């Protein structure tokens, strides 16, 4: 499949949730077969079963790297519509060596998994009114490696404007959202801005750490720092501030550069 076919598989025109699928990783797909084997698309954790789609629950899979994708496929088979919202730029290949430049957040495996899963997803008959399942990379804000000179800094944050509004969810009969994480029961600070808005609008928020054998349990998402501050969209990037002990990025508490 080429990148257009892959994107169409993940964001079909008929789904009301496709508008929120982030295109950036698809834009970097080449025509070569995916380097991911089929085994990489098998869920490594079988302990969690999502609610039946008829329960009209939105799911936020916030797992590291490509870990969300096998689970998304399993959920899609049940009747959920996966919506990839990975929003980080992959490092380009070095003009001199031809090999990929080191990237702070490793997104190439996500790209390859999206590519490998596309044919499987295209064969599924997911109903047009399927509830959404948003896929995020839990490493998006920090990466997994220390930043070194010459590395491509591709960290990103999730913003409320990256998702449908609470009104849109409610209008589509979605009254609950389940946050699935690796271990923490609470959302990351950037995603908390979105979930807090949903909660205030009457959407029940539940949490399901995969490490926990318990069923999803309701959580109260407290107002994160700078919640609803006029420039929260931009202050979110303050989370990328430089740590005096040698952290990442820069402190940029302002609107984007582009006018």
């Amino acid at each position, binding site marked *: 499949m080429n990148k257009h076919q892959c994107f169409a598989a993940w964001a079909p025109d008929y789904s009301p949730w496709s508008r929120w699928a982030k295109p950036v990783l698809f834009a970097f797909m080449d025509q070569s077969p995916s380097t991911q084997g089929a085994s990489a698309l098998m869920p490594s954790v079988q302990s969690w079963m999502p609610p039946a789609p008829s329960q009209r629950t939105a799911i936020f899979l916030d797992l590291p790297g490509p870990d969300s994708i096998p689970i998304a496929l399993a959920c899609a088979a049940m009747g959920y519509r996966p919506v990839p919202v990975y929003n980080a730029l992959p490092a380009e290949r070095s003009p001199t060596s031809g090999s990929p430049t080191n990237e702070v957040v490793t997104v190439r495996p996500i790209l390859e998994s999206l590519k490998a899963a596309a044919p499987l997803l295209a064969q599924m008959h997911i109903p047009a009114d399927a509830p959404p399942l948003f896929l995020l990379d839990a490493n998006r804000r920090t990466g997994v490696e220390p930043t070194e000179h010459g590395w491509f800094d591709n960290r990103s944050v999730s913003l409320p404007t990256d998702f449908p*509004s609470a009104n849109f969810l409610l209008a589509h009969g979605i009254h609950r959202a389940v946050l699935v994480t690796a271990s923490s029961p609470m959302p990351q600070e950037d995603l908390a801005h979105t979930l807090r808005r949903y909660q205030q609008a009457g959407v029940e928020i539940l949490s399901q750490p995969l490490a926990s054998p318990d069923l999803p349990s309701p959580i109260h998402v407290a107002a994160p720092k700078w919640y609803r501050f006029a420039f929260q969209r931009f202050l979110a990037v303050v989370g990328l501030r430089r740590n005096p002990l040698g952290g990442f990025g820069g402190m940029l508490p302002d609107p984007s550069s582009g006018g």
Partner: protein
Amino acid sequence: MITATHCSQCPRLSAETPLSVGPALSHEAFAAIRQSLLLDHCKWDPQVEDRSTLAPFPLIMSTTCWARLAKDAEELAAQTIRAEEYLLTTPHLWPIIGVPRKLRRALAQVSRLGPTPAAVRVMRFDFHFTTTGWRISEVNSDVPGGYCESSSFTRLIAAHFPALHTAGDPAQTWVDAMARLRSGPIALLCAPGFMEDQQVVSYLAQRLRVHGCDAILSEPRQLRWHDGHAHLNDTRLSSIVRFYQAEWLCRLPRRCGWTNFIAGGKTPVTNPGAAILSESKRFPLAWSHLPFDPSAWRRLLPETRDPRNAPWQTDDSWLIKSAYCNTGDTVTIRQLTDATRWRSAARAARWHPGQWLAQKRFETVPLSSPIGQIYPCIGIYVINGVAAGAYGRVSPTPVIDFSATDVALLLNPKAADE
């Protein structure tokens, strides 16, 4: 394919407004354009919450009207350059403009080290058709964006309207100008985490590579400066595209050598550091000190005052905004702003009046469209002094900000002028 060869499909230009709304493309045709933009042209923010940022219809203007606006934009650009050159030599005016203190120190080095050369100079003037004719709200003098939308998006929409044509391809004009510089690697810099900026530099890099240029994406901290020359991973750069606003530069650690972007650098930069002087929305407060009359600016920009000298707190015919307001985010109009945000902005303007300004409001003439009533804004690029194309945006409110919808501006050579 939908065509717009007849006036029945292109609403007539009326005496009231020189802009009209063209017919919307079919769902299938527009979906194909959208997907092409997303996957082939680096448009990675097509949706902001529930709002699509791409309009399925064009705005239409007569060719003669465009010619007049383009001439105005070129005149504005020439006066802006002349003003910047003078202001660079008058440090006592920098606080009036609201230039941050650290940047003033860097600008002060220009007299000793000389200005870092400009690679290409780009500005974008945002025009609005108002009840009193055309007005501008600002110039994006430092880091204007919108290249994909004004170039690829507009071209793809124009393909469905054979009787109409575009106002130009700003990205191509920009690439041609960059390619005329000496050859060698070009670094395109933006801030990590800002996808809306990363998509701009990715798009420009893509266009440069098509032209055979060696384009590398990076960020300012990655550069190393040796004797005024910028290096990236030990490679000497031929030029730099700074999509990183000047007021951010001064927050970088000094060891990054960020002052080289402004003074003493030998690697050409686009845009040059002097752009910070006209990027400030308080730039008009320095006009009375210029050795010439910026007549085009005076004619097109609404009256602008220091907040201490305008009745903005009691008179709703004024708005307030911050001096460095990049995407319209701090434009605050009491009637259009919730009480909490108004109080917050008003407090900031009272506490830091030197960083804010008050400006007379204008009333943009709205248009009816397939997505409801819209307020259009036509950003005109001037690249190295010549008008190069237009970036159309529409908003459901008179304020154009980051969530505005991009729209293709097409020209109708057969339409009567307003």
